């Protein structure tokens, strides 16, 4: 194998599994260390830099970071990253003076943002401090998009939502509520905008056209029903409710039903467990509230008598599962479930009836706009898409990242610069050694299991619709949980010319991830390691030839706990622990033509050359 190129910023970035997994590349290990030190405000601000809504996301993020957390491979449960983020938000104190502000003198560029959801708000957050004149059009009477309409208040309190949106909206942003854009052509021709950003989400719930669907008023579309509840248009539901679908919207629907008076709520799943779309923790929370999840039932028809819903008939399904995939299925019978209401939560899609099809904005054969994955530009110059509106339903953190990238494109477009020439990310490396056996991080391994989140008691939580179920971590719980973080950004960095091949590092490594061996092809080398490296998702760190025997040092990154013992035991400092800091360019870096410097001084890797890989959104 060729020696690993650690100058490529992607290499060490990838080692920080959580940050690599987060679409917005939030510097998770660093903010967890700040929380461990009780520096909640600093942790909040670091979070805000990349993910903009720490308090909101600390409650309702889909947490792409947690399933990939190294701790989850070393033992069973990942670090409770998301809930630690909430701690930083809960305990941050007053940070108003640290928030970005808009200059009183504008730069003369006007940008329209359609839809006041997380994507548009992120664009606004990035562009307002540069002096852009921003107009947000929102068809509803309140901003927030799906964060307000689709996420129930018992998961995301309205005050939390309003507070974080206000941090952005207060920057001289012209928010036009109840203003639905009915014609894109009209906006483009008569609006007088330099650029337009579409962040209208995926507002259309999918239909289930089975017999009886339109014979009653008791069948609801999940996201529309949640919106009616959020705006107080609906405050009751029948006693027996069937939810069709097992995604996260289904979980919100079943739990909301319980709070509106239902007492027998069943979530009907077509497939067995393991094929559900809902996150495990959302399923757990629903089941804690005694929601029954019924598997292998495929909807067949609605039974309606005289306009009144009696129940639903389902096909009983049987599946052949081979290697975790459904190879075949058959119907083995039918079953009737009585109910008073049905909520359809089987997905949602984008809808653009207001975008004319002859104005240069192309749509593909699924009627989804054609949007560039790097620049977020549509096929019409100056029109950008982000969030669910761009590529269909994802989640908030993706929309935030789309917003950051679209802001860069909008800025470049407005200033006549090519939008594909973007600043590459950089990587800073700084020695973590503070003295003999002294490191700039706590390298002792915390053996504690993941802290359990305290919930509001089952008796109390149903009394009102907006009683928050999760109570958040106490500072003590947070301090303990923070220590479970393995500090994956404190990288093991190897200098082959210094190595005397004494084996000290190989022997001391608690997880046997180091090997000194003759070089070979990757497939062969992976099998010859101290413990074979069979997790192919994780790279091998291969050194240059060692000076004395021409063998190579190989590190399997998979299970390294970043304890630093290899560096402590190395007599020549060939192994060193160095803190990596990903330098993500935002629009203000592009505007100032000044790459991010980070907090660690001069950047070392990747930045000097334009050939360094440009981060793509995918």
């Amino acid at each position, binding site marked *: 194998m060729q020696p690993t190129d650690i100058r490529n910023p992607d290499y060490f970035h990838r080692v920080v599994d959580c940050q690599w997994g987060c679409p917005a590349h939030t510097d998770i290990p660093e903010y967890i260390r700040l929380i461990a030190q009780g520096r909640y405000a600093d942790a909040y601000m670091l979070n805000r830099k990349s993910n903009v809504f720490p308090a909101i996301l600390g409650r309702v993020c889909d947490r792409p970071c947690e399933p990939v957390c190294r701790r989850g491979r070393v033992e069973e449960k990942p670090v409770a990253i998301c809930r630690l983020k909430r701690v930083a938000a809960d305990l941050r104190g007053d940070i108003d003076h640290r928030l970005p502000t808009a200059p009183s003198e504008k730069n003369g560029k006007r940008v329209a943002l359609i839809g006041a959801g997380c994507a548009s708000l992120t664009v606004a957050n990035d562009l307002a401090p540069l002096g852009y004149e921003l107009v947000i059009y929102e068809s509803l009477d309140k901003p927030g998009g799906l964060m307000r309409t689709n996420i129930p208040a018992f998961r995301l309190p309205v005050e939390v939502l309003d507070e974080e949106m206000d941090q952005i909206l207060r920057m001289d942003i012209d928010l036009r509520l109840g203003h639905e854009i009915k014609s894109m052509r009209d906006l483009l021709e008569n609006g007088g905008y330099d650029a337009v950003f579409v962040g209208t989400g995926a507002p259309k719930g999918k239909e289930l056209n089975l017999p009886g669907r339109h014979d009653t008023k008791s069948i609801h579309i999940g996201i529309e029903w949640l919106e009616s509840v959020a705006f107080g248009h609906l405050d009751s539901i029948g006693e027996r409710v069937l939810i069709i679908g097992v995604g996260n919207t289904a979980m919100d629907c079943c739990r909301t039903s319980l709070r509106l008076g239902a007492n027998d709520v069943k979530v009907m799943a077509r497939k067995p467990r393991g094929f559900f779309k809902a996150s495990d923790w959302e399923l757990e929370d629903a089941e804690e509230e005694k929601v029954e999840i019924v598997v292998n039932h495929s909807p067949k028809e609605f039974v309606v008598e005289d306009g009144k819903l009696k129940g639903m008939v389902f096909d009983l399904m049987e599946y052949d599962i081979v290697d975790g995939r459904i190879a075949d299925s058959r119907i083995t019978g039918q079953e009737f479930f009585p109910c008073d209401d049905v909520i359809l939560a089987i997905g949602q899609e984008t809808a653009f009836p207001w975008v004319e099809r002859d104005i240069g904005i192309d749509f593909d054969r699924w009627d989804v706009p054609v949007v560039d994955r790097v620049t977020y530009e549509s096929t019409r110059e100056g029109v950008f898409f982000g969030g669910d509106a761009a590529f269909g339903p994802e989640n908030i953190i993706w929309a935030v990242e789309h917003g950051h990238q679209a802001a860069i494109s909008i800025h470049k477009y407005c200033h006549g610069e090519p939008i594909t020439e973007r600043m590459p990310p950089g990587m800073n490396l700084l020695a973590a050694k503070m003295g003999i056996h002294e490191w700039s991080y706590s390298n002792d391994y915390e053996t504690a299991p993941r802290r359990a989140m305290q919930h509001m008691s089952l008796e109390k939580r149903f009394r009102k619709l907006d009683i928050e179920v999760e109570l958040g971590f106490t500072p003590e719980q947070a301090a303990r949980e923070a220590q479970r973080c393995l500090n994956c950004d404190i990288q093991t960095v190897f200098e082959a010319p210094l190595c*005397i091949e*004494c084996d000290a590092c190989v022997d001391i490594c608690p997880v046997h991830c180091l090997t000194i061996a003759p070089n070979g092809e990757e497939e062969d080398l992976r099998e010859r390691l101290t413990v074979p490296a069979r997790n192919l998702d994780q790279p091998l760190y291969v050194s240059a030839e060692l000076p004395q025997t021409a063998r190579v040092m190989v590190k399997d990154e998979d299970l390294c706990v970043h304890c630093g013992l290899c560096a402590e035991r190395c007599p020549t400092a060939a192994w060193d622990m160095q803190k990596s800091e990903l330098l993500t360019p935002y629009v203000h870096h592009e505007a100032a033509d000044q790459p991010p410097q980070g907090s660690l001084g001069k950047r070392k890797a990747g930045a000097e050359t334009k050939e360094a890989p440009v981060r793509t959104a995918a």
Partner: protein
Amino acid sequence: MSYIARPKVSHPALARNELGLTMRDYEGGMSTLCAGCGHDSITGALIQAVFELSIPPHRMGKLSGIGCSSKTPAYFAASSHGFNSVHGRMPSVSTGAAAVNGRLQYIGISGDGDSLSIGVGQFVHAMRRNLNMLYLIEDNGVYGLTKGQFSASADTGSTAKRGEVNEQQAIDPCLLAIASGCGFVARGFSGDRTQLVPLLKAGLSHRGFAMIDVISPCVTFNDHEGSTKSYRFTRENAYPIGHTDFIPPEVEIKAELGVGEAQQVQLHGGGSILLRKLDHEYDASDRSAALAYLSRRQGNGEVATGLLFVEEGGADMHELARLGETPLADLPYERLCPGSGALADLQDRLR
């Protein structure tokens, strides 16, 4: 040394031996030796060897004298028996232990100071008695614990860290062992584990005294340019006389192992050794030829490594002294202490 304990986590796919134990179950305390010490690497090799042989930790006795080397027993097999004894007197203590319980697997760990200076008499007599044990000399040619004076194994002409030249002759423990009648003599290098681990396994399976001299660089006082026991010098001048494979008893020896040229030695303790010679003129079963060969290599400034001499079938101390098979600890009290009448009878016989 390090100040944090080795984390208790381990790789979930870590291999298990016949006893269901992993390498980590054979670990000991955290080493307090200098970072990069050859001794720590030997500890690693020992852990691998006893793990692969599936030796139950409670069936091992670890013994040592005084010196950096003699701290080694603390760093592996934490649940085994151990005795850190007096400088150069580990062979006597081992003799006593072996006499009262011949069923344990004894591993003595000594250094060039402990075995070739203060303890050289004890060392030679342990070989003469043919104690059933593995005896390791962690050989770095220097008194590290007293800040780097030449030891008895320092080669003539080699220099100390500050440049003084050693003018005295060296004692080569391998030549000494072959000449003293030892039945298993090998030399390894802490930096070559593929060679060392099979040697350790073979030594552990040999019935009688198995002496392995392991060149073990002292990173602090003897890893410099004028040293003949540094990592670099040893790597450049090691002369492997052959490759030793230890074959466990249950494994059938097949031609694919390269038996054609190999010399096979059946071990008393089970298993066998396959010695694939690199140098055809070498015969590891001929004591006088081995002495001549090693002296010649030494004259060329080469460090011959590998299994240098092996002779199976010699009677060990237990047989020579006609000691009982049952450990004293397992004897019923009446036999262990037959009473004053028996003592009087014995004394009468000696009058």
